């Protein structure tokens, strides 16, 4: 019971928090909520299956672009629904063709996908619509953006929790460990991966759509910023991508660290960022949660003995 109650209380507190903080505090909350959502949604697919996707921004940017294109034509909820559907459809097409790629090939493919999406949208806008750069003028307050993102983040975590307990979650974990065993155990590899990929992509797309009113101006070069993909990956891995709370646990401190570094060391910020990454890889290779577990497990060394 406590496992459900505690997050609900936390969610309630986070919902009313904007009443007590400055605009900057709210900005920080939005940023943190966005990255918690992105990292969790990324981990929904990549965390269990170990398919490291760098396509996060392909979906995120598509979401922002969808809002930019449709915000004057459709009511806002319909725009969001469209964004989710477009993201899902894109993931379906991509997933059908690519989810058999393994290891580094998938990594590079997903990165190329983000670039291709950006190039194609640019070309389309230039040659077909003749406009590049679109405006989003919506009457949505910063708080509403925050609440939407909070809701999306909470929904992502709830969905992940549910998936983890479902057949889908078990199937994903088996796929992450050994696809051959998975197939011979009766798991439909393509369908399982595709479902998770599409779900994850829909959330990523929605996240891009929800934050987009904050930018006002949308251009492919702005919304398809590859850093978003990289940050998402490192955040999820820092916390532990195969655990429910891992990505969130990685996203919040990293987000705050970036914020601190870029405001206090605007010149040397990338240097510290680089060192931070390298530090994560060397010091917490399995994520913070796993690190915490090994630290606590040292008191009870029985698991060590069973190792050969």
């Amino acid at each position, binding site marked *: 019971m406590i496992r459900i109650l505690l997050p609900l209380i936390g969610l309630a507190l986070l919902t009313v928090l904007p009443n007590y903080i400055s605009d900057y505090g709210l*900005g920080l909350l939005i940023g943190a909520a966005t990255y918690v959502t992105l990292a969790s949604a990324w981990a929904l697919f990549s965390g269990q299956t170990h398919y490291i996707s760098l396509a996060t921004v392909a979906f995120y940017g598509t979401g922002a672009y969808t809002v930019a294109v449709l915000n004057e034509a459709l009511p806002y909820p319909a725009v969001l629904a469209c964004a989710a559907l477009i993201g899902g459809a894109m993931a379906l097409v991509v997933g059908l063709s690519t989810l058999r790629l393994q290891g580094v090939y998938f990594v590079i493919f997903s990165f190329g996908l983000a670039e291709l999406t950006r190039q194609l949208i640019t070309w389309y806008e230039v040659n077909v619509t003749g406009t590049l750069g679109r405006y989003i003028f919506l009457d949505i307050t910063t708080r509403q953006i925050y609440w939407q993102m909070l809701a999306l983040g909470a929904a992502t975590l709830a969905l992940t929790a549910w998936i983890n307990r479902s057949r889908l979650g078990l199937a994903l974990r088996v796929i992450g460990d050994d696809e051959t065993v998975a197939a011979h155990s009766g798991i439909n590899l393509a369908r399982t991966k595709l479902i998770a990929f599409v779900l994850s992509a829909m959330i990523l797309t929605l996240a891009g759509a929800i934050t987009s009113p904050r930018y006002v101006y949308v251009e492919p070069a702005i919304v398809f910023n590859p850093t978003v993909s990289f940050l998402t990956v490192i955040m999820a891995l820092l916390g532990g991508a195969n655990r429910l709370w891992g990505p969130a646990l990685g996203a919040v401190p990293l987000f705050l660290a970036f914020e601190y570094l870029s405001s206090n060391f605007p010149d040397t910020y990338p240097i510290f960022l680089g060192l931070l990454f390298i530090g994560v890889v060397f010091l917490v290779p399995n994520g913070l949660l796993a690190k915490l577990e090994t630290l606590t497990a040292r008191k009870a060394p029985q698991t060590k003995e069973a190792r050969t």
Partner: protein
Amino acid sequence: MTGISRRAALRALSFGVTSTLALTAGMALAEGDTVKIGYAVARTGPSATGAGITTIPNYELWVDSVNKAGGLTLPDGSKKMIEVVEYDNRSANQDLVRAIERLASQDKVDLILPPWGTGANLAIAPLMAKFGYPQLAVTAVTDKAPEFAARWDRSFWMLGGGHDYAKGLVDVLAAARDAGTINGKVAVVSVADGFGIDLINGARPAFEEAGFELVYDKTYPLGTSDFAALMSEAQGSGADSFVAFSYPPGSFGMTKTAQSMGYNPKVFYISVGGAFPIYPGVADGKAEGVMAIGGVNADSPAIQDYFARHTEFTGKAPDSWASAITYASLEMLEQAVERVGLDHAALAAELSGGTFETVIGEVKLEDNQLRDLWWVGQWQGGAFRAVNPGDKDGASAPVIPKPEW
């Protein structure tokens, strides 16, 4: 607190580029004795290059000059030193928006200077309006400036729109064609992003109206590094005029490619980067006659003095397009503060209605926009001189055809 000494040590790592923040933060000035000015410009990421050329050096130069003169003068004649709060927006709008919120609500700075780039200025406009800060958007080229100025009444748009630059260029070319110097054919390439598209969309109807024929009209993606194919097509098109609505990497690349392949159009026009001080070096000393976007009145003593001070302070000359205007916007701010103080509403009203003495001459905004701008410049005798509008005070006559490379 060990935190402070570590911070100081880390900051010492950032040798030199700026130290305004460290410098002023160290000053033991009581609250209220300083004017806090904040900005969040790109230090890293794709926008860092543009910001590092046009925006940041001018901010630093201005703060330095004001503080050396004893600080900003207020209406009562008292002076207050400027204290800078600076963040890196990492070339990402989500970070930029948050940094502005931080400056406004956390640091409670007195004034906020705008970031570099059209998209960035648009992204912060609603926030600046919400918090009431005047926004002197300089590095934003947009045809929608009138619309934006009306939407956010404390925003000021100071670099014109794509149509203006396109029209200025067409005027120059039309005059040359009417004089029989060049033929009626134009080869034009444009970079596929908001800026390039704005310009080409303005240029197509303007060229058509002036009776030019666009014999080659292509768009290339941002990030293109090889222009050999593009330039050889343009060369083969039979046009006397080559026009590129380009960004610096493209402007430089096309210049070099044209030189190496011996492409000598009578008019060679490039956009951003053409007015950069490094351009003559890029063109291997053969920049003479190259046209580009922007320009300054190179004979004006105020501009010459500004160039000298900029060179002395930052170690390099400013670009001859948006730099001087950026600096002028800061002078406007300085003079407006002297007249009406730091109250945002009064400041905005003064900026909107007042007349200011700046490095680019006397400035008075029309409908919150700076319209008295140079659209086309040309390298002449080692300096980048404004050639259009030709009737504006200080304009040089364009040299067409351009001498061969």
